[in-house]
């Protein structure tokens, strides 16, 4: 792991400032709620990802300090679980379901269409930082396969056409503003 600039601060300084930082409010609340017990790690990482969209090295350092866990442990957990991401997400998120029902209903063709049009594969973000494409293992909306999440909204019975339209709408909206 490379060191970065903020590491010049002593861990204590940086931790102290974060305990009061409003951006860390949720993270701090969850840790406090669990009495700073090490078993709160996954819950805390959820709070961090909800707050920042991803889990940065800086956040991991802070959590490791507060929960008295080695940084390696925090890193191991953050990278073991697929739900956590260390890469900052794009402005909009499209999570394509690749579960069984969606797969046989043609989710792959939707993925191909997105890759062709926007030049991103699952796990990647467009170069302008607008759209991230992710995949999931089943959204529990199999009755409406193929399904995907657009930002926070689940939508079903998708086709390559209406998915591309949704992504285009996001882009056009940027052009408007």
């Amino acid at each position: 792991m490379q060191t970065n600039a903020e590491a010049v601060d002593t861990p204590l300084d940086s931790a102290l400032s974060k305990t009061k930082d409003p951006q860390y409010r949720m993270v701090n609340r969850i840790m406090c709620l669990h009495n700073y017990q090490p078993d709160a790690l996954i819950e805390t990482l959820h709070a961090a990802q909800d707050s920042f969209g991803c889990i940065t090295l800086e956040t991991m350092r802070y959590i490791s300090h507060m929960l008295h866990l080695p940084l390696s442990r925090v890193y191991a957990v953050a990278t073991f679980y697929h739900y956590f991401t260390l890469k900052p997400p794009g402005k909009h998120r499209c999570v394509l379901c690749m579960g069984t029902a969606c797969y046989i209903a043609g989710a792959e063709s939707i993925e191909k269409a997105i890759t062709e049009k926007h030049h991103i594969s699952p796990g990647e973000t467009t170069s302008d930082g607008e759209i991230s494409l992710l995949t999931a293992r089943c959204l529990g909306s199999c009755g409406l396969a193929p399904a995907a999440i657009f930002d926070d909204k689940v939508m079903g019975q998708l086709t390559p056409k209406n998915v591309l339209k949704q992504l285009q709408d996001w882009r056009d909206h940027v052009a408007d503003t």
Partner: protein
Amino acid sequence: MSLTLEELNDIAEKELSRQQQFSRQIRVCCAASCLSCQDADLTQQLQQTARQQAMGETEIKPVGCLGLCKEGPLVSVHPEGTLYSHVQINTSKAILLSESSLPRPSAIDPGQSLFFTRQNPIVLRNSGSINPERIEEYIAVGGYKALYQAIRNMHPGEILSQIQQSGLRGRGGAGYPTGLKWSAVAKTKSTQKYVICNADEGDPGAFMDRSVLESDPHSVLEGMAIAGYAVGAQAGYIYVRAEYPLAVQRLRTAIRQAEKFGLLGNNIFNSSFHFSLTIRLGAGAFVCGEETAIIASIEGLPGKPRPRPPYPATSGIKGCPTLINNVETFANISPILTRGSAWFAGIGTDKSKGTKVFALAGRVKRTGLIEVPMGTTLREIIFDIGGGISDNGTFKAAQTGGPSGGCIPKQHLDIPMDYESLASIGSIMGSGGLIVLDQSSCMVDVAKFFMEFCTSESCGKCVPCRVGTMQMYTILDKITRGQAQLSDLEQLEDLCDLVRSTSLCGLGQTAPNPVLSTLRFFRDEYISHIQDQHCPAGVCSLLTGK
């Protein structure tokens, strides 16, 4: 606060008389699937219109899953019971105002539709009829009475024998007798024990547990509390997928309400029994559904399984005896205590008692959530309840048990759906995902799909699973590219055998199942990929040169 039986009855009566003020009830499905296709908040819109029109006699309430997910958004009107499908804002007004000039959504009479008449809801007893966010409605249909009975009038041993006599088996996949599992935990001497509800539902293509949690969360809480009392545990965890935000939210609401009413917490029903519940979020790892991995995950560690024994029943969370059951298993508990084990044991087959909830999806006309007695045949499920194959396709296979299960071909359509019968043809009951495949699916591709799933979900701890699944995937990939030889099939079968018998946990041990079952019933498809470089279903594009 601690409730007495009178107070519990009072709450029920108050709620019932509240409901009696209304002569008409419009139930709007507010489970995730229907919510995702509403063009705006239907419940709110309808409530607003009803207020504007001063329709005080009509109650508009959000309810859990109405079952027929494919036809959503769904709305049902009572007392008639008519079910309306594809309801949008403009057509919903026609239902409310009963005006014939307005455009009307299409109506279904559940009394006439095989989709509904063939079902026998026990787990889904309240799904689609009560508001999942109001504990009063659960209490009004008799909720938490079984818990009262258990705590105040029954000895833990009596509960254990009731559950054992009912013949209930775990609904999470393996079908282990629930009574035996409970007894094993109850027998341990520890003063600290735990109950875990496994709501990880990692099987792709399954949504039973999500629907139960979204539609009737209290039925699960009640089952867990009864389990806690029977085995001597004072705390429980619900481990639920982070991908199910609505289920998580409804669970949180339910726990808060139950705590407020004293149905969770200290001295429940003025007894010496304490029971508290905590929600733990999963983070997208299929292997965390495995019982030792779920424990590691709850402790904040990477979710890697460990060898058993010791089983969680003797050494689970923090080394304490821990009971782990699936969502659906817990939802069965209160009806068993209320209606008796003999009643429950009278449903189903010789060795598989009760009902099973299936998530019916894939190439079938009516996709959705169903609950049928064990032993119902696959044909009845797909053709009567499901209405047959969509788009006039032909049935090819039904996939059960997800990545640990197998494919059931046409010649076995009349198989009764119970644990033993499914195992006898190389599939498993699994947790209840049932995906129908038609002629457009290539069985080698399906096997490859599941193997890809297993390679990426393998936690990497044991070699057979980590390396073996990758090897199998490579061979399957070669086959779908038309670059394999017949000898590769032999190697594939050898690998299946090896991975199955030497993997550490259930993930690896069952990973070969989809391959073995497709090889057993669709070997000719493998052969034609290999010998003729031809994919009969036209899926594998490199072969057909598309």
